Each structure stands twice: as C-alpha cells, then as structure tokens.
C-alpha cells in the first residue's frame, strides 16, 4: 500500500519535473547532443593511445631485430588525432554542463517565482502563523535541495550513465572476457559499499539525535544565560553539556567513519580492476588475443567506468533528498488559491457596515464568533473590547476577509461583502496591528507603502501628522534610514508611529486598529493616541484594545465575550449600566 502510494507520488513528481523542462526543450536537446559527442570522443581516444603503444612495441622489436625503425610519422599522426579528440570532447562536455546548469537555474528561478506567487494567492489559513515555518522552510531549504539535486545529480546522472554504457560497449568489443571480469569486480565492491552504508545508517540516526539534543540544550542555555548566572548554575550546566557532547562524539565518529569507508572501498574497486587488467591482459597478450597497447586502452576505460559509478553512489542521497523536496514543492504549488470568484469592484462606502448574525470558528468544533450582530454607521468610531480570546481580532479578520464567515453575513451598504472582489474590498481598509510589520528598507519607502504614488512631500506630511516626523529627522539618515529586522535603531513605539504614517498616507475609508498600543508603556501610548486621533479623523474606525483608558471618546463601545456582544453603548451609557465595562474599569482604577 505504502510503496504503491510512493510510486504514484514519484510518477507525479517526474511528470511535474518534465513539465518544468518543457519550456527548455531546445537547451535540453543541445545538452543531449553535447553529452553524446563528448562520450563518443572520450571513448574513442583510449583506442588511439593503445595503437600508439603498439607502434612503440613494434618499433622497439624492429630495432632489436634490425628489421626497421620506429614509425614516428604514424605515431605523431595517432597522437595528434587523440589530442584533438580530447580537446573537442572536453569543450563539448563543458558546453553540455553549462547548458544544463543554465537550464536548471532557469527552472529554480521560476519555481521560486511560482512559490511566492502562490503564497500571495493562498488563503490566510494556509500562510498564517502556524504554517509560516513550513512555508518558509520549503521556500528556502527545499528549493535549495532541489536545485542541488537538479544541478549536481540530474546533470551527472545522465552523462555518467552515457559514459558507463559507451565505455562498456568499447570494452566488450576489445575483449569480452576481461570486461566481464572488471564488471564482476566492480559489482562485488559496490555490494560491499551498500552493506556498509546500510550499517552506517543506524549510527547516522543516533548521531542526528544526539546532535539535535545538544543543539537544543545549547539554545536553551544561551537564551537563558542571565538566569543561569544569577542562580550560580554554571558548573552544573557545563557538566551536563559535556556529557551531551561526549555522547554526540561517540555517535559522530562512528557514523562518519562508516560512511567514509566509501572512499577506500571504491579505490579498492578500481585497484582490483587495475590488477585484473594487468594480469589477465598480459595473459591474453601471451595468448595472442590482445595487443599490449590495448592494456593501456583498458586502463583508461577502467577510469571511465569506475569514476562515474563512484559519482553515482555519491549523488544518490542528493537525488533522494531532491525527490522529497520536489514532492513538497509540487504539493504546495497544487494547494488551493484564495477563493476570489467575484470581480465586482466595491466603488464607494456611503452608509453603514452590518454584521448580521455571523458565526465563525478556525476549526470545525470551535466557535470563536457566535451569532454576532452589529451595525456601524459611516464615520463612527467603534471600540471593541473584551478579554483575550473573546474574538475581537477574529472579527477584524472576517471584515477584511482574511477568513470567511461560516454563517451569517457582513454587509457594506446592504450588500454582502462576499459579492465583491477581495482586493477591492480590502483597498477600502487601513489597518494598524499589534504585531508591527515594516520591511527592511528606508523609512520613506515604508511610509510610501501605503500609497505607492505618493510624493516625498506627501510622505513627510503624513509622517508629520503621525507625530513621527520629529524623531525621524533626528536619525542620522533621516527618512533614508534603513529599518533593520531587529529594529534596534528605533523604539517599538516609534515603529508604530511609522505604521500610522503609512495608514494616514493610504487614506482609507475604514480603519482598523488592532491592539495598536499594547506593547508600549502607558505614556508613549498617550502620544500614539494623539496620532491615531489624527488618523481617524472623518473615518469609520474599529478600535480593538484591552486598555480602556483610551476609548472614552468612541461613538460606540462594544464589549464582546465568547464571540457574542455582551453590552454596547457610549462610555456614559455603559457606566450607567454598571455591567462588565463598569466593573472592569473599577478594577483598573483600583490603585
């Protein structure tokens, strides 16, 4: 059953790889011609060398017997032809490998492009936090492994196979018996190698395990250095570490040693072949069925025969890894795109947004949003509050259609948002998230991300409104400062101000602030809120927060719990109700 499924997989992979290659047919044909030519010349040359040796032998015996001299003219002729063939063969073989590498890197380029394109098209659940690691490792590791497999293995396998076959044919035509002996010797030691490598697999697994364990320990320890130091735990932990490293070592050398046996065993291989040629060849010479020159030819053929076999055993693991990677990549590329059937553009937003009895869960068995209803008039500021896990953020993900409701409807001006093209819907919304996302480029480019057509002046103007202009100008490079991933050049609060500037410049009708100030201290929060007020002027906005101090001016405060509206109203109304809002405020006040 399993093997059957694997075969199906392999077939599909091969089909996919072949489809990739289709666009490069011409280059592949060219490669093939070069490969055949190169093998042909490589295989003929040893015969010429053998003939040259024969001329030498004949000449030597002529001289001893005084029957003539060495045929220099013939010798030079043969050697010149041989040298020319060698030259051509190598030039052709260069061209062949070059074309193949060019083709494979073209293929890899387009695979990367397709993956990123896929990532862009996929629905949010396939690329969210839980999937991020998997997608990333595919984009980087798997593609690299596949590239490795395509460039090194794929190229080599085809040419090496041709070389082996060509050499085999030539050897058989010269002397079948000697050929059979050589093949026998080679097979024998290949079997030996196979046995050893099977044996080494066991230690290899153990080694990986020990290595993983130690790496994990190192990570844990280095990331908690301060704790370890303050509790005087260093000596104990160093002793533990040394134990782990010792164990790793014992598996490490065993597995490496066993797998290193490949090299001496393959050279045993070619040396035994060498002996067979020298001994058997001489016997055939004595019997008159072969010339001495052919012994040299055979020496050359032996090299042409065993080298490719050695390479093939070396690249087998690469190939296997490549197949596994290809499988992951093609599976990924075949995943479903984000469903976006409608091409209707949302033209304008005039009246209201309605959440009409909606329900949603990330998995089938949970209900994050449970029969939720709410109406928001254009221009209103809506604050959504509630405890962790109450469904605040989910609500926003449904409104932006990163996820789709399970039941109920979200409507804009009475029309279900599912009727619109997702992108056109989203282009009406600006968001500020708790998890700040800026990319590594200049501050100016990051702000302009909100409106790609914005001029430099517009960028600065919106930055001004967001209260970020002042600190940006204080940076040594001003708006040209590059934001790095660690973000150590500016503070968290400042980064949030930049995203606000980005939202201001994008000038969207609907604004969503998802816990935008939760990672800053309370005084900075006040500053950010000033900027947010600027941003929200004349807009319809949704403010999600768990800090109540900042939402008093909202037109409506919606308290949700377990996916349902618990209470809603203005600050004053809710206080009068003395419900959840009132009680929460009271505990926060309690200092």
């Amino acid at each position: 059953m399993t093997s059957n499924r694997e075969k199906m997989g392999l077939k599909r992979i091969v089909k996919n790889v072949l489809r990739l290659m289709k666009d490069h047919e011409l280059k592949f044909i060219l490669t093939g011609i070069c490969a055949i030519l190169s093998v042909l010349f490589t295989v003929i040359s040893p015969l010429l060398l053998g003939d040259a040796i024969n001329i030498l032998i004949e000449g030597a015996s002529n001289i001893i017997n005084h029957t003539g001299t060495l045929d220099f003219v013939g010798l030079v002729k043969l050697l010149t032809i041989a040298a020319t063939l060698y030259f051509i063969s190598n030039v052709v073989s260069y061209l062949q490998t070059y074309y193949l590498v060019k083709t494979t890197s073209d293929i890899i380029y387009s695979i990367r492009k397709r993956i990123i394109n896929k990532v862009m098209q996929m629905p949010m659940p396939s690329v969210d936090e839980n999937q991020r690691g998997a997608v990333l490792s595919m984009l980087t590791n798997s593609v690299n492994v596949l590239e490795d497999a395509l460039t090194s293995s794929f190229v080599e396998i085809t040419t090496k196979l041709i070389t082996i076959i060509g050499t085999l044919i030539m050897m058989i035509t010269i002397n079948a018996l000697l050929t059979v002996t050589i093949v026998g010797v080679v097979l024998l030691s290949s079997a030996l190698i196979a046995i050893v490598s099977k044996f080494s697999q066991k230690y290899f697994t153990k080694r990986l395990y020990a290595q993983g364990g130690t790496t994990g320990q190192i990570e844990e320890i280095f990331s908690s250095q301060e704790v370890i130091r303050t509790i005087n735990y260093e000596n104990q932990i160093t002793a533990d570490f040394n134990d782990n490293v010792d164990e790793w070592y014992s598996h490490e050398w065993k597995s490496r040693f066993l797998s290193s046996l490949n090299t001496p065993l393959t050279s045993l291989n070619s040396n035994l072949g060498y002996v067979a040629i020298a001994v058997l060849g001489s016997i055939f010479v004595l019997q008159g069925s072969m010339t001495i020159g052919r012994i040299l030819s055979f020496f050359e053929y032996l090299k042409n025969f065993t080298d490719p076999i050695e390479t093939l055993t070396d690249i087998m693991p690469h190939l296997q890894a490549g197949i596994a990677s290809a499988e992951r990549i093609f599976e990924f590329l075949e995943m479903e795109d984000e469903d976006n059937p409608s091409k209707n553009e949302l033209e304008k937003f005039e009246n209201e947004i309605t959440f009409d009895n909606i329900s949603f869960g990330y998995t089938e068995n949970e209900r994050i949003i449970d029969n939720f209803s709410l109406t928001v008039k254009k221009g209103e500021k809506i604050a959504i509050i509630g405890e962790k896990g109450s469904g605040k953020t989910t609500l926003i993900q449904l409104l932006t259609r990163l996820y789709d409701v399970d039941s109920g409807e979200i409507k804009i001006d009475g029309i279900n948002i599912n009727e619109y093209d997702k992108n056109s819907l989203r282009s009406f919304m600006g968001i500020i998230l708790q998890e700040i996302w800026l990319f590594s480029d200049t501050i100016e480019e990051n702000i302009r991300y909100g409106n790609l057509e914005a001029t430099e002046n517009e960028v600065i103007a919106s930055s001004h409104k967001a209260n970020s202009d002042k600190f940006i100008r204080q940076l040594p490079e001003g708006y040209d400062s590059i934001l790095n991933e660690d973000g150590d050049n500016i503070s968290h609060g400042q980064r949030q101000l930049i995203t606000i500037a980005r939202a201001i410049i994008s000038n969207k009708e609907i604004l969503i602030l998802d816990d935008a100030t939760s990672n800053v201290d309370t005084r900075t929060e006040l500053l950010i809120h000033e900027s947010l007020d600027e941003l929200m002027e004349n807009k319809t906005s949704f403010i999600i927060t768990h800090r109540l101090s900042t939402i008093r001016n909202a037109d409506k405060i919606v308290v949700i719990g377990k996916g349902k509206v618990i209470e809603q109203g203005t600050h004053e109304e809710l206080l009068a109700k003395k419900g959840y809002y009132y009680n929460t405020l009271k505990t926060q006040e309690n200092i």
Partner: protein
Amino acid sequence: MNDLISPIIKKYKSIILILLLLIVQAYFTLTLPEYTADIVNIGVANADINYVYDIGIKMIAITVLATISAILVSFFSIRFSSGYSRDLRKMIFPKALQFSNLELNDISKSSLITRTVIDVSQIQMFIEELLTVIIFAPILGIGGIMKSLELGTSLSWIIVLIFVVIIILMIPLFKKALPYLGKFQEITDRINGNAREILIGMPVIKTFVRQDYEERKFDKVNSEYHETHINAYRIILLFTPMLSLHLSLMTVGIIFFGSFQIESGDLLIGDLLAFIQYATQIVTSFIMVSTVFTIMPDVTVSIRRVNEIFKTEVSIVDGEIDAVNTENPVIEFRNVDFKYPNSENNILTNINFKLEPGKTVGIIGGIGSGKSTILNLIPRLQDPTGGEILFAGENIKNYKLSTLRENMSLTPQKAHLFKGTVKSNMTIIDKNASDDEINKALKRANVNFIDGLDDEVVQGGANFSDSQKQRLSIARSLLKKCNFYLFDDCFTALDKNTEKIIKNNLKDLEGASILIVSQRISTIKDADEIIVLDDGKIIDSGTHDKLIESCNFYREIVNSQSDTLKDGI
C-alpha cells in the same frame, strides 16, 4: 588562534600516527604500477605465465593492504577530527556562558549557537579533509617522483610542466570564481529574509493589496540569485574539463616523448605504462587538493568566528572576597552611570539609592528608561561604567561572583524554566531543599495549578501559560533564603488578583530587602520608597503619597493607568 590549535597539539601523537599510515598507504598505492611494469617487461616478454600469476597475487595482496591502510587513516583521522570538535565545544561553552550583555552586543546569542554548533562542525570537516586528502597529495607526489626516478626515465619534467600549466590557468579562474562563492551565501540570506518578511507581513500585504508589489520586489532578489548562479557556474564548470584535458594531454605527451627513449632502448614498454600510471596518480591527487579552495572561504569564516569567541575578553570577572559581612546587609548605589560601548547616550546617569533590611524599594519608569539595567547591575550581569555599587560596605566587584550572587535572588522579566520537573526546577537553587520547603515557596508564589512536584516541565516551560511560568519562576526565587529579593517587572504577566496574593506573601520575607521594578503603578505603590526613572535618571523618589504631590511625571503615569472613572460618574 592558540586556543584553536592547542587541542591539536595535545594530540600530536595521533597526527604522527596518521602521517605514518598515509606514507604506508602511498607506498602501497605506488607499488602497483611497478608490478605492471614487471609483468609486461618480464612476464610477457619471456612468455612466462606463472610469473604473471605470481605477480598478480602479489598485486592483489598489495591492493588489499592499501585499502586497509586507507581505512585505518580514515578511522584515526575521523576520530581525531570528531574529538577535536568535541574538545572545541567544551572549550567554547564555559567561555560563552560568561558573556554579559557587553560581549553579547558584539556576538549575539543566536550567533553563539551557530558558532558552537555549525561553525565547529565546519572546522571539523575541514580537518578531516586535511588529514585524509590534502596531506596525502604531497606524500603521494613525492613518492611518485621518487618512483619515476627509479624507473630511470627522463620524463618527469612533463609532470612538472603540466603542473605549472594547470596552476597558471587555474589561478585566474579561482580568482574570478571566489567572489561569487562568497556572494552566494549573502544572496541566499537575502532571499530567505525577503521570504520571511513576506510571510510575516501577509495580513498587511493583503489588506494593502500589495501582492504584485511584493512579487516584484522578490523577483529582484530572485533574478539576482539566478544571474549570480549562472555567472559563477560559467567559470566553476570550466575546472573539470580543463583538468581532465590536461591529464589526457599529459598521457599523449608521455607517449610521444617516451618514444625517443624506447627507440634508443633506454626505456621498456612496461616502464612507460607504469610511468603513465604514476603521472596520472600524482596529478589527480594534487587536483584533489584544489577542492580545498572551494571550502576555504567557508572555513576561514568559521575559524574566524570561533576564534572571536576565544579572543573576546570577558569583562565581568571574579573578585577576591568569598564571604559577606552579615552585620551590614545593605546594597548602595553611589553615582552609578551605565552606557553601552560605542554608544553616545548614557542608559543610566548618576543613580543613588540604598536597599536596606526589611525595606521595599520600587522603581517605575517607561520602556527603555533603564529600570531593568539597574537591576542587572546588582548581581553583576553588567558592570557600571561610572560610580560604584557597595554591598555590605564593599564594592561588589571585589566579591567572587558566586558569593555575590548567592546572597541575592533575582526574578527575571521573562520567566525561564528548565526541562525536567517542577521539583528539578526548584532544586537548582538548593540541592538539599526539602519537599516542604519547596511546597512553601510554591504556595507563596500562588502556584495552585500543578498536581505535584513531579509534574513535567518541557523545554522552555512551554506546557505552562506565561502567567504560570512566571509564578513558578517567582517560587524558585522565593525558595532561596537570602537578604535581597529582586523582581524585574515579573508581575506584569499576572492578573491583578494573583499579583495581590503574591505581594501579600512577600511580607513573610521578614528582614529582607525587596526591590521591584515595574511599569505598573499598582505593583510598586505600597513600596517604602519609589524611585521614578526617566531616560536613565532618577527624577524623584519617595512614597506614593509624596510623589503624587511632588512629581508631575509620576502623576502622569498614574493618570495614564487609572481611568477617569470618578470624573465619568
């Protein structure tokens, strides 16, 4: 560099053994062609089949011996190189463990991990390669030259000539290829970085509808990679055919020039065949050496990175004193300044305060105000750049680190639990702590969610929530009996109720001084003294009631955290 070399020198005996084995291996490998010559020159010439068989058996024996010696070389060099990496890791680890923020500024924690794991492995591979392949080449080369001289041919110059030609052609090629090899890693990193950025930013990208923009941006890096790849391989791929062409031309040359000696009777056919074998072996083994150049850039980087760890001088080192004067358990900050090297701005400026027995001090301030830094200075996780900190009247730098740290208990901002059990996490503090004592500490930290002391703790404590981890971490700190308890903003992850319970329990720590750092007013409000910190400076201090009156900044914080419920009603 000495640190990297010392484990090698210590095992010089292994190296000598490996060298001897390599010579043996070379000897056997080079003997084979000699026998071929004998077979052709004597066996075939005299039509003596028995002689051919005799030599054949000897050749097989030598082949087997050569293989055995090669296996032994592998065995010893792999044990050597694996052992080297083990020793190196054992040396790096305790050193890196001493790094404070000061050193970690230059070598980050994640970089320390890669250095200990990957860079060391890289060096290990290199040493293995060095012992089995790279040293073997010259041994084989010298042996081969001796052998071919024995044959009495005057053809050795061809080998030398081919070498010179190969080197002359290769050097410019290598020079052209090397920059590309270095660039690969850099571009791969950029591709990965860009991909990560895209994945993390997906919600933003989708809502800004910037899919095309991002694809175009990615395409730029992708194209660059594509181009670099092709350009690099245009050169790298030249190596193999070029080398094999020269090897073949060498054989052609040997036959041509050998023909003169054959004609004059100075050289026998068998010897010519043997010489061709020698020449090929010698040149091939030297070509193997050239693989060094492809791994060289990576290895040099790894060596440099590991060496950096050894070169880094640890700034925080032991003092002399190993006992504390218990009569005066006071910690005092005197005009303490702190700043990072290469940074212009002080993190802390002129900090003065005292921790006295039985008193609680609170420090409040915004993110980046330097609160945690003050705390880290006390157990000397960092050292002040100005002023001094006194412990029982003595500068803390004069104590042994373990002595100093034994006398205090710090709960970090980010709780860290170790893999093991609840109990094993507690006994880290005190090996001999009884279950009763542990339970008491757990109770004080309001740990009411475990079944027993043997509950499992997975790596990083991931099987507990943030708040639970924090409580366990607090329990661990409370288990320690000492005069100073330092809490670094560790109550933030707790809900108010739990915080209240734990703070109440802290009153049991009679006679000890408590220092609590927080950005939450409610946490430090009851402290005997509250220090208000802004931008690394103490702007005011006193009790809550006093500060409400005197300190505008403090009032602002209070206002930003309390809602205006009173006004509302």
